């Protein structure tokens, strides 16, 4: 008989448990107090970037009964029944408590005044925003965050995102007292104070009072702050208000054993509400580990909680902070090796054993790039060279070292996946081990392990070139070679193939080397580019005229209709807001295009690894909710980037408001209007591996937007692999989105002028490819089915009627005898 598992709590850890058990035989019922689906609370501060809760949502749960907005109000352990707020009763065979935690609010007089908030949920942030927007202070708003730990700095970041200058008040003598030591915290304070934060350490708020529309906070050190909003984020406490009559741990939390089981063998607790053998954990990674334990236990396994690695690496207010192992050197006899570079703004401390042989822990501030290789070495022998100032060595990591601490994936698990052939690249490793899918800090390590395992992360384009596409791009750009023959003679071997020829042709086109059907380029092109149309299964082609932004006049629509009718073309609306005309033979293509070009159409590049379309919603022109002219911008972008050849196709969209009707976040670059300008998202994809695009810049004006897109596209075109969409490129980019932002927004590499100039050259050079063919008899002459019988129809092509249109008769395939 099917057994029922009830999970109380729909936070990240509860969500994870259900995900793990999704395909098990258990019937799963989830009670969630919040009415929204589970979301990424770790990334809560990013909510202020878009104010769209959908951006934070975790993968939707399937295969369970999700009771959102239904708080579990009591549990009868005798009858094994959970009672919901609506009165519903669900009987369980196993019960998992995943109620999370509640914010700790210190007993400051005035803490309940309007304008005082906690920082825990999306609703909390909405409330904080409402307070800030209601404040009538001229100029910048002022806020106080009580708590200078990890959560407090996150809250301060969220306030900054709302245009509030935060005061951070921390009782301890330094910021992030749990993770960081005095030296690291000193640097951290200096770095965050540059970002409009005021830090008050070693003090606390002694009272908060309302004065008209403002709040006045008095600090214990005598300072008075004039504020619009107060946020408490001074830590959390396990949430145990649901009383099951079970024992609690010494510092709160349902007391459980190493199997995460309470004294009642059918009841488990996981995540922040659990006190595992007396210890409560406030991080998500240990919570995930507990979810794994319980999933295993209720499936009959014997897994126990291995204890948690409390290491953290994060970017707070743009500052890298990492802390791992015995960061505070509490081990007896521990030695510290500190490099504090105040000029560069970096601090690193390694803690080693008294004989200087074993790494015990460390703190990194300002630059945490060494974290992925150092953290797994905790408890292992350290090479002496590492302890020299500025010293770094290639560390050989033991097999049991944890590479991904978010998902507790060991080096062994990863190397097993690689060596068994299950995973050959980072994307596959992410899919089969989950490593790298949390904070992403271990992605460089995954790449290194692939290399170490001899998975030739071969960049070689094909058997004719040992270079990667990016390297070939640089070679061709620097040497200004303009023919494939010259490239392969000087930098490759053999005569080329169907991989390198189109790749080089695409690079030549990206570098503006004239018409892609020019004498030296035509033989390099894949059939779609060679005939400037899309090959279909019966050997005919489809035709897609450009319809920028999806906006078209009735007159032009009529022309398309007439052409389709006259040539008997099957007609279908595409997903990119244009019209595809199917069934044209090679001979018909120039005739069709002559009529289209005469009517003012131009190539839509549906056939090319190039910009396809920029979709749009109707925006402010018509829509009652639109806040910007999305159609106008979409047309401007489509006309700017039309014809741009790239490593793979490029799709884009512009939405006129946050409702996102144009589905911009599924695009390579998508723009969503805000009240103040535009948000730019990059790296989105539909298709085989859907991916939501990441926010690159927000609230920018049109000029800045276009500048950043110019740079983004050119950077992608120069550095991506062949047939690598922006999503995969971004996933594999060392340093990920942060690095991309450093390059194309902050111009860290100093190449932005060059990228912009390259795009300007493209815009200047653009010419319609189909017009180019129609005006050139030599190019036109290639559009014949039979060289010895021009105009004779291909006898293998025949059509039948389906729903009033012509569709191909499926071709017999008699020749294949296998």
């Amino acid at each position, binding site marked *: 008989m099917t057994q029922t598992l009830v999970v109380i709590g729909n936070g990240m850890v509860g969500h994870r448990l259900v995900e793990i058990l999704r395909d098990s035989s258990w019937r799963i019922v989830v009670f969630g107090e919040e009415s929204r689906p589970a979301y990424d609370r770790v990334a809560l501060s990013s909510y202020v970037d878009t104010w769209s809760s959908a951006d934070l949502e975790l993968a939707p749960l399937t295969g369970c009964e999700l009771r959102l907005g239904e708080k579990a109000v009591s549990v009868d352990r005798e009858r094994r029944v959970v009672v919901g707020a609506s009165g519903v009763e669900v009987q369980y065979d196993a019960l998992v408590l995943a109620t999370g935690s509640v914010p700790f609010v210190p007993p400051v007089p005035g803490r309940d005044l309007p304008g005082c908030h906690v920082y825990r949920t999306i609703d909390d942030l909405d409330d904080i925003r409402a307070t800030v927007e209601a404040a009538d202070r001229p100029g910048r708003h002022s806020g106080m965050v009580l708590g200078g730990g990890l959560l407090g700095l996150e809250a301060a970041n969220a306030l900054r995102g709302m245009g509030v200058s935060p005061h951070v008040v921390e009782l301890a003598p330094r910021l992030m007292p749990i993770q960081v030591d005095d030296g690291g915290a000193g640097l951290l304070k200096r770095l965050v104070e540059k970002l409009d934060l005021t830090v008050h350490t070693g003090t606390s708020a002694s009272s908060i009072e309302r004065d008209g529309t403002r709040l006045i906070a008095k600090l214990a050190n005598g300072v008075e702050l004039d504020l619009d909003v107060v946020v408490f984020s001074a830590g959390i406490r396990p949430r145990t208000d649901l009383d099951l009559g079970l024992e609690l741990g010494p510092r709160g939390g349902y007391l459980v054993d190493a199997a995460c089981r309470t004294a009642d063998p059918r009841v488990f607790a996981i995540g922040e509400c659990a006190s595992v053998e007396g210890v409560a954990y406030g991080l998500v990674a240990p919570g995930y580990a507990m979810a794994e334990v319980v999933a295993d236990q209720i499936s009959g396994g014997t897994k126990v909680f291995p204890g948690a690695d409390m290491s953290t690496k994060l970017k707070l207010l743009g500052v890298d902070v990492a802390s791992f192992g015995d960061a505070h050197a509490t081990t007896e006899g521990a030695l510290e090796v500190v490099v504090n570079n105040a000029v560069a703004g970096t601090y690193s401390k390694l803690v080693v054993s008294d004989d200087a042989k074993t790494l015990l822990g460390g703190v990194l501030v300002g630059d945490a790039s060494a974290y992925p290789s150092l953290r797994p070495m905790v408890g292992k022998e350290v090479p002496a060279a590492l302890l020299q100032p500025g010293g770094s060595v290639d560390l050989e990591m033991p097999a049991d070292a944890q590479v991904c601490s978010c998902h507790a994936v060991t080096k062994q698990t990863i190397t097993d996946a690689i060596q068994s052939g299950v995973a050959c690249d980072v994307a596959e490793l992410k899919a089969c081990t989950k490593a790298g899918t949390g904070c992403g800090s271990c992605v460089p390590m995954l790449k290194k392990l692939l290399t170490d395992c001899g998975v030739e992360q071969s960049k070689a384009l094909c*058997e*004719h070139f040992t270079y990667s596409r990016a390297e070939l791009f640089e070679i061709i750009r620097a040497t200004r070679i303009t023919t494939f023959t010259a490239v392969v003679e000087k930098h490759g071997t*053999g*005569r*080329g*193939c*169907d991989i*390198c*020829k*189109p790749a080089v042709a695409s690079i030549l086109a990206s570098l503006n080397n004239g018409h892609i059907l020019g004498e030296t380029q*035509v*033989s*390099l*092109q*894949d*059939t*779609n580019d*060679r*005939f400037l149309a899309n*090959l279909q*299964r*019966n*050997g005919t082609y489809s035709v897609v005229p450009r319809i920028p932004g999806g906006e078209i006049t009735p007159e032009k629509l009529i022309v398309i209709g007439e052409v389709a009718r006259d040539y008997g073309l099957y007609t279908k609306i595409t997903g990119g807001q244009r019209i595809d005309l199917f069934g044209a033979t090679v001979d018909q293509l120039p005739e069709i295009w002559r009529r289209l070009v005469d009517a003012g159409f131009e190539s839509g590049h549906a056939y090319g690894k190039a910009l396809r379309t920029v979709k749009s919603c109707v925006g402010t022109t018509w829509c009652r909710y639109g806040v910007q002219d999305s159609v106008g911008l979409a047309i401007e972008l489509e006309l700017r980037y039309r014809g741009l050849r790239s490593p793979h196709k490029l799709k884009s969209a512009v939405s006129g408001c946050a409702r996102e009707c144009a589905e911009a976040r599924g695009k390579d670059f998508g723009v969503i209007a805000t009240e103040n300008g535009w948000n730019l998202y990059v790296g989105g994809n539909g298709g085989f591996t859907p991916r939501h695009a990441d926010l690159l810049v927000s609230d920018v004006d049109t000029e800045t937007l276009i500048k950043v897109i110019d740079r983004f596209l050119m950077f992608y075109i120069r550095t991506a692999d062949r047939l690598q969409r922006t999503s995969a490129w971004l996933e594999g980019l060392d340093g990920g989105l942060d690095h991309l932002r450093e390059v194309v927004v902050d111009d860290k590499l100093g190449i932005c002028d060059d990228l912009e100039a390259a795009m300007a050259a493209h815009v200047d050079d653009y010419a319609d490819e189909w017009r180019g063919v129609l005006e050139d008899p030599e190019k036109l002459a290639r559009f014949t*089915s*039979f*060289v*010895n*019988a021009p105009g*004779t129809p*291909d*006898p*293998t*092509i025949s059509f039948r009627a389906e729903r009033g249109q012509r569709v191909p008769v499926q*071709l*017999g*395939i008699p*020749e*294949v*005898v*296998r």
Partner: protein
Amino acid sequence: MTVVCDFEVLRPEQGVAALLPDGSQVAVFLTADGTLHALDNIDPFSGAAVLSRGIVGDRGGVPVVVSPVYKQAFELATGKCLEEPSVSVAVHPVRVRDGVVELT
């Protein structure tokens, strides 16, 4: 004997299609070293008459044409499919006489 075209119409590393009197089709290729090859134009994997529109190149030094439909490579000299050696397309004798390409 079927006349395909004047030799000078051909371009190195490209193919053209010719229609035979019986309605069948042949793809004729000129490689960079000046050699002529002729194969059935129909791609056995898709049934479409498109091999003449494939990209010409080499695999390990062996001249091939790659079907534009599902990308299998066929040896120009033998018609053998490299991915599935049991599959091949017919090879036709082809020559140049008085500047004219002919299938014999």
